[in-house]
């Protein structure tokens, strides 16, 4: 079982992938900041940015279906807020602003995370002197997220192999147990990881 949904295409080989992580992170953050502060009336900026990002996507060889899927997955979060704006006078303007800006920002970050391995991004943050605790937390999250998902998948399979009822209530009840078990296992694992860190000099 192998999960790598965070940076699935980050190990492809393309001119964009070969760029150094520092440049990519700085450019991505600059694009996001500029997009957020740019008034929506600067249509040329948004069109050019859209074309440039599409060009990067093509050069980086990341499958279009993957990028579209990822956008669809993340967009509802921004859309939820945007839809609320429709209920006020002049709401269309706010709605359009949020949709355009969030789409471009999300697209930028999706491209960044799929052209740069997560470990390299952490390396850049470390060089930029981000707080060590934050970087350690991110690194541990990245390392154990997949493990947790594998564990959940294994438990789910084990449960499915011994589930003989289709009654919804029973299924929900079992799901509750699975989630609880997963929580207990993660807590115990966290203790063991901490012990392993201490054994190699962590203070």
């Amino acid at each position, binding site marked *: 079982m192998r999960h790598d949904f965070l940076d699935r295409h980050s190990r492809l080989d393309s001119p964009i992938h070969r760029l150094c992580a520092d440049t990519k992170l700085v450019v991505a953050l600059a694009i996001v900041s500029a997009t957020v502060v740019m008034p929506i009336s600067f249509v040329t900026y948004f069109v050019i940015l859209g074309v440039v990002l599409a060009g990067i996507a093509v050069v980086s060889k990341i499958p279009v279906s993957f990028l579209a899927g990822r956008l669809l997955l993340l967009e509802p979060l921004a859309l939820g807020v945007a839809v609320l704006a429709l209920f006020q006078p002049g709401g269309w303007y706010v709605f359009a602003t949020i949709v355009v800006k969030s789409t471009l920002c999300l697209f930028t970050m999706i491209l960044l995370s799929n052209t740069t391995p997560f470990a390299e991004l952490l390396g850049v943050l470390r060089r930029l002197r981000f707080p060590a605790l934050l970087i350690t937390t991110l690194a541990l999250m*990245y*390392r154990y997220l997949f*493990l947790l998902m594998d564990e959940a998948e294994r438990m789910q399979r084990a449960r499915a192999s011994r589930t003989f009822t289709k009654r919804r209530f029973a299924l929900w009840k079992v799901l509750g147990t699975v989630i609880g078990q997963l929580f207990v296992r993660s807590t115990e694992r966290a203790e063991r990881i901490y012990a392993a860190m*201490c054994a*190699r*000099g962590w*203070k």
Partner: protein
Amino acid sequence: MIEVRNLSYRYPDGKEALREISFTVAQGECVGLIGPNGAGKSTLLLHLNGILPEKLDGAVSVLGQPVSSENIDSIRRMVGLLFQDPDDQLFCPTVYEDVAFGPQQLGLSESLVPAALERVGLTGFEKRSPHHLSRGEKRRVCLAGVLACEPRVLVLDEPTTDLDPRGKRELKALLRDIPATKIIASHDLELVVELCPRVILLDRGEIVADGKTVELLNDEKLMLAHGLERPHILQHRHPHGFAEAPWVK
């Protein structure tokens, strides 16, 4: 070199894990720690590195230094601990960072990292993510992470679990070449026979026997009484003995 005197330990839930454990291990010795599940092997190993208990009382000492909160750093520098589950031990995003973790924490040079990786045969794996390695490779990265700290005592908890026969053979060869004092807790009695001239049998938190591996493991009654078996390696002896383990005659 390692001295354990009247060590007792009770888990916070009240379960007694170790009772009046005493033994000494000389420098360069390789000692096997055997016993059924739940005998207290892992708990004992955690004491050697000062991970347990929360309150240290000096019942364990390494190279003359008692394991206490004052000298816990130098104890951890001297004692390298290989954990049972490699996923607990590999917590960094890449192999290189994981192997470099110990040297960085202990203020050692990072030049030890390539050497440690080469020693376990994983040169070229630096940028790989631990999640994408096989079980055997993970185990070797763990070992590299411990070796990079240059420990004088190597404490291994079930090092061959989940390894295929080739992985086991390679690990055995690797361990044989490491000159450090070794304590190996394992259910893999073949490994214990091949690597450890001396063995300590633990059951229900107590030391049941401590002596020569071949003598103890050949005692079928003793083995069966404590949830173990006489290993095949001793049942079918090779006419010329073992080149690698001269104590098996």
